[in-house]
């Protein structure tokens, strides 16, 4: 099953089960069914509960917040993740704080779904990964499924269980990807697959290891779309130089499921964090600090972060590939720690 199909299925099932689930966004109504087709079929099957909104991100976020405050479970689609900047005030000074500012009289179970990510030549304002800007906003969750998770299940958890405003970060590159399945030896491709649920029951961290029992040389933490590159890099390094990388793929970005990472970090003592967002002040910076605060004595080398360059993403696809993290950046980072 493809990533986009998993999401579409989950939305169909949820809307069937729960009448308070509403879906909003630009151009999401059939027959178009949304820019990336995640919402295709919903307006036909659930008339009156799928709303086409005007092109005003601030307005529709405010509107959705209001719905959430009044007993609905709105799932708002922001067409391109780059536009989340327009929703910022409604999230930062609105949705995330109302539960507390109004004395816990109600919850704000608002889910904002949006595709981040580049590598498609869409240009500087349609290719960013801005979710790490929101790491410092108290009162929200950020979930970012990879193709090693089940996005539909995670979306379900975000809508039904989390109970607070959640940014659900999808990735353009991942939409057409087949979701990974485990074979009878417990592997996905060449890696042993394991789920870690120490921090969060519904949002697990996936662990991929070439050797099941052996200690890894490096712990690589990566989420979302760029995980595909990280896996390629790890595979290449084991073939070329027998470097053993354990890849940890969290599905929840905020709060950081730090306990899911620590065992591997303690074993390897060397950490690389890969994100598609800009390296400066990004996810890697926060996770590196958390790790070093907790298990500094186990670290052999400083933690290294790979991220996008501190520069607008070029429109040319070739240039874009060198400004966003690429496979050789990740391999160099890993080799630099050994």
């Amino acid at each position, binding site marked *: 099953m493809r990533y986009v199909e998993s999401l579409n299925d989950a939305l169909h099932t949820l809307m069937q089960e729960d009448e308070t689930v509403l879906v909003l966004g630009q151009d999401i109504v059939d027959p*178009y069914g949304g*820019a*990336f*087709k995640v919402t295709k079929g919903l307006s036909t099957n659930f008339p009156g509960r799928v709303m086409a909104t005007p092109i005003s991100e601030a307005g529709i976020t405010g509107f959705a917040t209001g719905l959430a405050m009044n007993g609905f479970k709105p799932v708002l689609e922001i067409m391109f993740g780059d536009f989340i900047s327009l929703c910022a005030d409604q999230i930062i000074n609105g949705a995330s704080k109302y539960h507390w500012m109004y004395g816990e009289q109600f919850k704000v179970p608002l889910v904002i779904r949006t595709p981040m990510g580049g590598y498609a030549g*869409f240009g500087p304002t349609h290719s960013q990964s801005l979710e790490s800007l929101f790491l410092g906003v108290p009162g929200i969750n950020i979930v970012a499924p990879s193709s090693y998770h089940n996005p539909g299940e995670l979306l379900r958890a975000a809508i039904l269980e989390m109970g607070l405003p959640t940014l659900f970060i999808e990735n*353009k590159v991942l939409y*057409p990807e087949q979701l990974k399945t485990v074979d009878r*030896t417990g*592997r996905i491709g*060449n890696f*042993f697959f394991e789920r870690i649920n120490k921090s969060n029951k519904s949002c697990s961290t996936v662990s991929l290891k*070439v050797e099941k029992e052996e200690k890894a040389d490096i712990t690589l933490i990566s989420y979302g779309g760029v995980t595909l590159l990280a896996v390629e890099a790890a595979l290449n390094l*084991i*073939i*070329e*130089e*027998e470097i053993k990388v354990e890849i940890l793929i969290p599905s929840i970005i905020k709060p950081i499921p730090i306990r899911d990472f620590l065992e591997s970090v303690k074993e390897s003592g060397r950490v690389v964090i890969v994100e598609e967002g800009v390296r400066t002040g990004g996810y890697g910076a926060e996770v590196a600090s958390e790790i070093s605060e907790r298990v500094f004595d186990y670290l052999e080398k400083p933690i290294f972060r790979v991220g996008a360059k501190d520069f607008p993403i070029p429109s040319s696809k070739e240039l874009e590939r060198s400004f966003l993290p690429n496979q050789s950046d990740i391999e160099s980072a890993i080799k630099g720690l050994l």
Partner: protein
Amino acid sequence: MPQLNANDSVATLVKWLVEEGANVTKGDVICSIETSKAIVDLESDFSGKIVQLAAPKEEILVSKPIALIGNNFEQLKKEKEKLVQLNHQKSDEKTIEAKFNATKKARNLAEKLGIDLSHLNVEGIIKEKDVLEFSGKEQLENQDRIEKNDVEIESYVDLTGGRKTGKVLMLESIRTIPQSYVERIVLLDELVKTITNYEAKKGKLITFLSVVISVLAKTLEQNKRFNAYRENDQILIYKNINIGVVVNQDNFVSIPTIKNACSLHPTEITEELMRIRMSIMRKKPILEDLSGASFMVSAMDHTEITRFIPIVHPRQAATLAIPKIQFKSEDREGVLSKVSYLNLGLSFDHSFLDAIQASKVLNDFVENLCHQKDRLDSEE
């Protein structure tokens, strides 16, 4: 295949609207394709004969060719053949690689050892150690050996604990101390008689080694430079005369040490040595008993070794060698008698001591040995 929608990376060929080999003109509709939004008719950009590359219902990546249009039909068909072959090759390569994924190191080693990787029964990626293990199995079937550097090694033992410390001490010693050696014969008949009588007379235990230690202590009082060590350009003379006895045990480092040997009677030294040996045997050794020696005696008198050259320890000046007590015939006043003797040896640090000084030590030792014998005889 054109990219008609920004978000489409593939499109499907629905059907061809012209025959293979037909003449097309620029602008003619040649096929229908289905994108994520709709089914669209495609026009030809060129004129000529058409060779179809895509099949109906086939999903093609955007920007990949779906047809060839040109004037030379035969040439175009050859091109198509080439492209088809290329595709097959690529998918073959992929399946071969997928069949057994092995690391570079593994492939190199397998080639070197002449092993066919497909014989290995390994799930997942084959690593160098998998190849090693496999090759080991093959060799073990013949002999129980591992080849290293063309010299066959039967087995190996790790240096641990005392043996490892010993290695460190000896290497340091050889590196920092220029070792030399002098030797003289010591006649022992009289001494042996004295020791035997003493035990009978006094009922106290006294060993040959204890007498050696007490005599050695006296000798070192007279030759203080031998109870010392050199550091850079200084000779540091030890305050106390602590004599360590190097005994051959599994744990090299345990050197029972008699502290202030000068002040002790041989019977006391005997007792001390016994006490320390007991504590070792009971596995309750006391650290102070086994360290702090300023001079060593290496006792091999209970072996068949008639001469040996001990190595001076770091931070010491010399070591006394006590080999096996031997016998020879001697003509004494016309009577052929058997006398006992040993080759008393002294290894010393030649960077600040010379052979003359070392000889004096041995001579003083023999003289003191005589005196000690006399003292023991005269005790009531």
